[in-house]
């Protein structure tokens, strides 16, 4: 249904703008299915950035923030064609192929679920089209020697390193270090990769893993899983969960009277406003790694304007996922602009030469520079905590807007 409407819209747009040499980019997200909202949010983030690049508006203090199309390409406009992978890796493969062969897109961008990025990147490699992964966090994606794969966002090794660095800092500050953790993660590539890294880093930091629980995603109940967490009684519970499971998990904890001293989530569901709305006060104090800090306005002056534009479309603030999606398109558009060409090979060369300082984006990162695996090495994450019903950046200190609330060891 959604796809039909999109196809009709795409056709209309084609007809209307046939004369302009648009740059056509294929965006693949899960627009329907179990994580449809995340896909719809991604779509609105992409559309916001495309509008910032294409339309005439007051200048925004960031890269390509002046509007009016791509300056080195005679003001060519970015045109997005959206495809729906329904969170299914096989559909993602088919949709990627369709975008390349039928819609002749010059680059692909996506895709939220890491499992779908795995298949899209294979198709991109085969057809020699750049694929920019904007929000997938599985480390394995950039460890397969692909040459058409680029990822602006940090992966779970970098994210998890930030969590353990934070544990070390806060332990030294308060004298109440983390001695044990409990891992709980969903049973797809996201949970498997995330927990694998956490297990290793806990061992390296001398932190005991008291529970190691893999659960079935979209379960009707997580009562038994949470009962095992309670029995383990670790200092920090570390979930890797999508939104629906995150809601269920916190409710199940509450149902059996379990409140862990700290929760440190691997983003995803725990950084979703829907999650906070659904569980309300139960989420208070939960921490998550993130790569976006909405409150870092002092060092990233473009945030208020960009957020206002996104809010006008989506009716909510930018979050960790949507900010990365938006910046991903900015980076890809910049590479195409610098390439001055829509040939995939030229775009790849320009992507490899990318060197954008963080302040030219809305992210709290040092910047964007890809290594030989296509991974952005300058994307340093932040830690956020839900305080008074809002996400506040608590670490690292230079972008923090609130002090951490720390109950471990009390």
């Amino acid at each position, binding site marked *: *249904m*959604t796809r039909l409407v999109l196809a009709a819209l795409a056709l209309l747009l084609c007809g209307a703008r046939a004369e302009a040499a648009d740059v056509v980019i294929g965006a693949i997200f899960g627009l*329907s*299915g*179990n*994580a*449809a*909202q*995340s*896909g*719809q949010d991604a779509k609105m983030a992409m559309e916001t950035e495309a509008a910032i690049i294409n339309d005439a508006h007051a200048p925004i203090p960031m890269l390509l923030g002046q509007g009016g199309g791509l300056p080195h390409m005679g003001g060519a406009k970015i045109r997005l064609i959206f495809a729906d992978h329904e969170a299914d890796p096989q559909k993602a493969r088919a949709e990627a192929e369709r975008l390349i062969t039928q819609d002749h897109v010059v680059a692909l961008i996506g895709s939220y679920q890491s499992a779908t990025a795995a298949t899209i990147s294979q198709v991109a490699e085969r057809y020699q089209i750049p694929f920019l992964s904007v929000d997938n966090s599985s480390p394995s994606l950039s460890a397969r020697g692909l040459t058409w794969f680029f990822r602006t966002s940090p992966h779970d090794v970098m994210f998890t390193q930030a969590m353990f660095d934070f544990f070390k800092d806060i332990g030294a500050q308060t004298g109440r270090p983390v001695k044990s953790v409990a891992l709980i993660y969903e*049973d797809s590539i996201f949970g498997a990769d995330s927990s694998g890294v956490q297990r290793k880093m806990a061992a390296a930091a001398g932190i005991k893993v008291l529970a190691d*629980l*893999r*659960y*079935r995603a*979209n*379960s*009707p*109940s997580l*009562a*038994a*899983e949470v*009962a*095992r967490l309670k*029995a383990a009684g670790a200092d920090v519970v570390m979930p890797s969960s999508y*939104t*629906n499971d995150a*809601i*269920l998990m916190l*409710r199940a904890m*509450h*149902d*059996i*009277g379990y409140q862990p001293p700290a929760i440190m989530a691997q983003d995803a569901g725990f950084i979703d406003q*829907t*999650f906070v*709305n*659904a*569980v*309300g006060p*139960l989420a208070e104090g939960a921490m998550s790694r993130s790569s976006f800090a909405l409150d870092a306005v002092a060092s990233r002056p473009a945030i208020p304007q960009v957020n206002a534009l996104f809010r006008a479309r989506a009716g909510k603030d930018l979050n960790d996922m949507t900010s990365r999606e938006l910046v991903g398109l900015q980076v890809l558009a910049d590479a195409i602009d610098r390439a001055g060409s829509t040939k995939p090979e030229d775009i790849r060369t320009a992507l490899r030469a990318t060197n954008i300082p963080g302040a030219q984006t809305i992210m709290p990162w040092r910047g964007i520079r890809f290594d030989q695996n296509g991974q952005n090495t300058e994307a340093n994450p932040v830690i956020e905590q839900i305080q008074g019903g809002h996400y506040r950046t608590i670490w690292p200190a230079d972008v923090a807007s609130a002090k951490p609330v720390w109950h471990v060891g009390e």
Partner: protein
Amino acid sequence: MSLAAVVQMLLSGLLMGLIYALVAAGLSLIFGLMDVVNFAHGELLMLAMYATFFLWRGTGIEPLLLVPVVAILLFGVGMVIYRTLIARALGVRANRGMVQIFITFGLAIFLQGAAQFAFGGDFRSIGHSLLANRTVAFAGVYLPLPQAAAGVVCLLAFAALLLIARTEFGRALEATREDREAVALLGIDRDRIFALGWGLGAASVGVAGAMLAGFYYTSPDVGANFALIAYVTVALGGFGSLAGALLAGVLIGEVEAVTAQLFDPSLKQVGVLGVYLLVLLVRPRGLFGTL
């Protein structure tokens, strides 16, 4: 494992199992009545949950009081589905089984899409109500009140369904199931009985959805999380048997809880399906099956 933890595990399993049972009851009723497997059953659950959510949000009425409203609403939905789709599917001359499978399957996909179009993909939850997020603790065992209330309502709904089975209408249902042609000779309107059967089946899943909305999240494909278990519950309990659905639902809830406690929690459905396969080997018609 402490005694409190064991009791907690069994209690969680029981409460979840009662919900499974009530979701399955409607499916069982429809299947038993006319040999139609309703693949859109999970989507009826979804509709009931959305109805509860929006009625609660719109009126602020306590979700518990909305149960009868949602049940009546779903009764209507069930009747309409029967009259517009199922009656036609039953009327075709060739491949009747296939047609009814595709029709209910198509309906499921349509309802999911329609829900996403109308309500968006966000997860909705009833934030505050009399029972929301409240628990009672006794000797280290916690009883979450929304689930407990759902369990009680589920048992009441089963009692009501069993009572209905003893009425004139219930006997007509039973007779229609036994011999469609003969009841027509007795002047019973088969079509009307079937429509009421669908209404009743949808109403019971409506009750389950209204209670579930009080502690679960609501989204366009929430039905899928419960549908598979509902089919297994019906098959395990025996097709067309209400008591079987009740027992099988509770059994599945407990097997799930115990599997998740003792093994890798991601294997809990394997435990459930393992038990089902075992029953299938020993007693193919299900625990209480008569068909």
